[in-house]
């Protein structure tokens, strides 16, 4: 068997391991194994790549230093990656994921750029020699439009991924400059203009396949586009953006695979692309919004009833002692966490509250809305960090039918995902969005700092419902106070 055949066999093994890794992601225990298999697959592919004809040939000509250089690059990158992954606080996961994602996209852009540069300098060997060029063209070695387009797409998607992820990172880190969404009314025209320039550049690159300058121009325009596309998107839509960028980084890798004719890049890239697309679709569905709406819309600004109409005189505020008394009589309590819980860092306090309740024989469960938080599955990670067993975290469709038998639902830092207007008011901007039916519980306790609206900017009739008690405080302080009150009682 030729050495290329062995290399391809190794790539096949990698692809199978990656698919297995995804397949084992169905349960928390098997997922650990899956992650190891994924890492093993990656290691196999990296070693196999070292035996590629181009690399072996270059080692034969130049001695082992190409391998030393690559090893060094791998060590530098791997070292930085490991330190980042181990040091970054668990609560900063959305940022970390965004950041890593962006680097993958940038790497693909650089790979395609390097390949273009290499082909260009190879063809310079023939230096205008008409006979050689004719032979090359006859042998179909001349750049072929499909592969030029693949190169262009790699550069473009990679650049959009990198800068888009960078903006997402900055928003999630709440860097001051990025705190407010960019809502310039002309932004659609700016984006449209940039998109047209991109198409023009791709067309130009097809006409002049060896133009390195056009490639980098495309990368620059892609970089601007990555920023202008992400900057208008608000915090609550971050889960969608993270998923979409994740998908892009995979697609960029797949496109790079087309450029250098490497099946493992294509397979791994498309697996990641598919994963990101599915998550994007799930997130959009959970918000009952179209992808186009999330990316370009911002929520509709139809004026609905203001907070004053909805809340007037109907909001009941309670003290920690009063709520503790209600909780003491409860046999089933459901806790509904939202992004406010993450902001207040209240996950450990919630765990203590649950412990105090469980000690009294109360059943405690957690209702997780698919888009609660800033990335897919954010609440699960947050609560897992506080050692809350994952069996108690229930998904929306699973727990919704049980709310009528729930004595107390405690909503901490969630708003739009528990707004019954989504179910009852067809005029509401969030009409039709699947919500957690907490209003059907016998008593609802809402922990919130004020009556300020959530991301959708609409009042929540839940706060004025007869069975709702409001507890106005910071999430963490509130939960600690409740726990103390229960322990005293």
């Amino acid at each position, binding site marked *: 068997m030729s050495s290329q055949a062995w290399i391809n066999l190794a790539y096949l093994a990698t692809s199978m391991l990656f698919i297995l890794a*995804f*397949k084992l992601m169905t349960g928390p225990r098997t997922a650990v194994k899956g*992650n190891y298999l994924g890492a093993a697959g*990656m290691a196999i*592919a*990296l070693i196999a*790549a070292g035996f*590629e004809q*181009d*690399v072996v040939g270059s*080692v034969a*000509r130049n001695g082992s230093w*190409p*391998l030393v250089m*690559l090893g060094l690059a*791998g060590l*530098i*990158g*791997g070292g930085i*990656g*490991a330190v*980042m*992954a*181990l040091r970054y606080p668990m609560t900063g996961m959305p940022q*970390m*994921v965004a950041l*890593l994602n962006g*680097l*993958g996209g940038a*790497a*693909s852009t*650089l790979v395609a750029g*390097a390949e273009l540069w*290499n082909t260009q300098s190879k063809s310079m060997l*023939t230096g205008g020699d008409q006979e*050689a060029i004719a*032979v090359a063209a006859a042998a*179909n*070695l001349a750049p072929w439009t499909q592969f030029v387009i693949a190169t262009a797409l790699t550069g473009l998607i990679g650049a959009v991924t990198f800068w888009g992820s960078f903006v997402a990172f900055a928003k999630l880190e709440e860097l001051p400059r990025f705190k407010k969404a960019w809502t310039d009314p002309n932004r659609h025209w700016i984006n449209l203009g940039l998109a047209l320039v991109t198409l023009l550049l791709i067309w130009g690159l097809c006409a002049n396949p060896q133009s390195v300058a056009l490639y980098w121009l495309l990368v620059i325009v892609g970089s601007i586009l990555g920023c202008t596309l992400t900057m208008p998107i608000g915090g609550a839509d971050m889960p969608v953006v993270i998923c979409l960028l994740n998908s892009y980084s*995979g697609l*960029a*890798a797949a496109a790079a*695979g*087309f450029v250098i004719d*490497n099946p*493992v*890049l*294509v*397979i*791994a*890239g*498309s*697996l990641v692309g598919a*994963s*990101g697309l599915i*998550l994007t679709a799930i997130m959009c569905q959970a918000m009952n919004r179209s992808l186009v709406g999330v990316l370009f819309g911002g929520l509709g600004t139809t004026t609905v009833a203001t907070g004053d109409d909805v809340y007037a005189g109907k909001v009941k505020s309670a003290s920690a002692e009063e709520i503790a008394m209600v909780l003491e009589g409860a046999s089933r309590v459901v806790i509904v966490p939202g992004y406010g819980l993450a902001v207040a860092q209240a996950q450990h306090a919630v765990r203590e509250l649950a412990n105090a309740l469980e000690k009294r024989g109360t059943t405690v469960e957690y209702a*997780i809305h698919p888009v609660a938080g800033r*990335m*897919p599955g954010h609440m*699960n990670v947050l609560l897992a960090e506080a050692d809350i067993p994952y069996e108690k975290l229930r998904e929306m469709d699973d727990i919704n039918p049980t709310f009528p038998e729930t004595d107390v639902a405690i909503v901490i830092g969630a708003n739009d995902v528990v707004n019954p207007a989504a179910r009852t008011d067809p005029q509401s901007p969030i009409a039709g969005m699947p919500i957690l039916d907490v209003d059907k519980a016998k008593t609802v306790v809402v922990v919130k700092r004020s009556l300020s609206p959530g991301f959708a900017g609409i009042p929540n009739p839940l706060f004025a419902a007869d069975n709702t008690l409001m507890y106005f405080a910071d999430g963490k302080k509130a939960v600690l106070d409740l726990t103390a009150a229960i322990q005293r009682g």
Partner: protein
Amino acid sequence: MTTLVLPLLLADAIAAEDPATRFIRLLTVFLLAMWVGFEVITKVPQRLHTPLTSGSNAISGITAVGAIVVAGALTSGVGTVLGFLAMVLAMINVVGGFVVTHRMLAMFQPRKK
């Protein structure tokens, strides 16, 4: 010059399949892998969506393979430098992604107190 380059190009030409065939081969792989991806990933439960995101993130670092090929060939100075940089970035992505996924999954395991 011609005498030096021609045999090289011809050797390449014999080894290479025609570009359309090559493109369709890669396209086949791409679409089938997408399909497998859709089938497998729709079964991942919501509670594991974050580790799924970070794990798939690590896998997108596969572009490191591309970096090895383009930088290892030492064809052009600039190409090699770009490939080197790509290798560094891709490896941050790979190692960071797998380690962070492992950390996250470790939290999902029931722990003995």
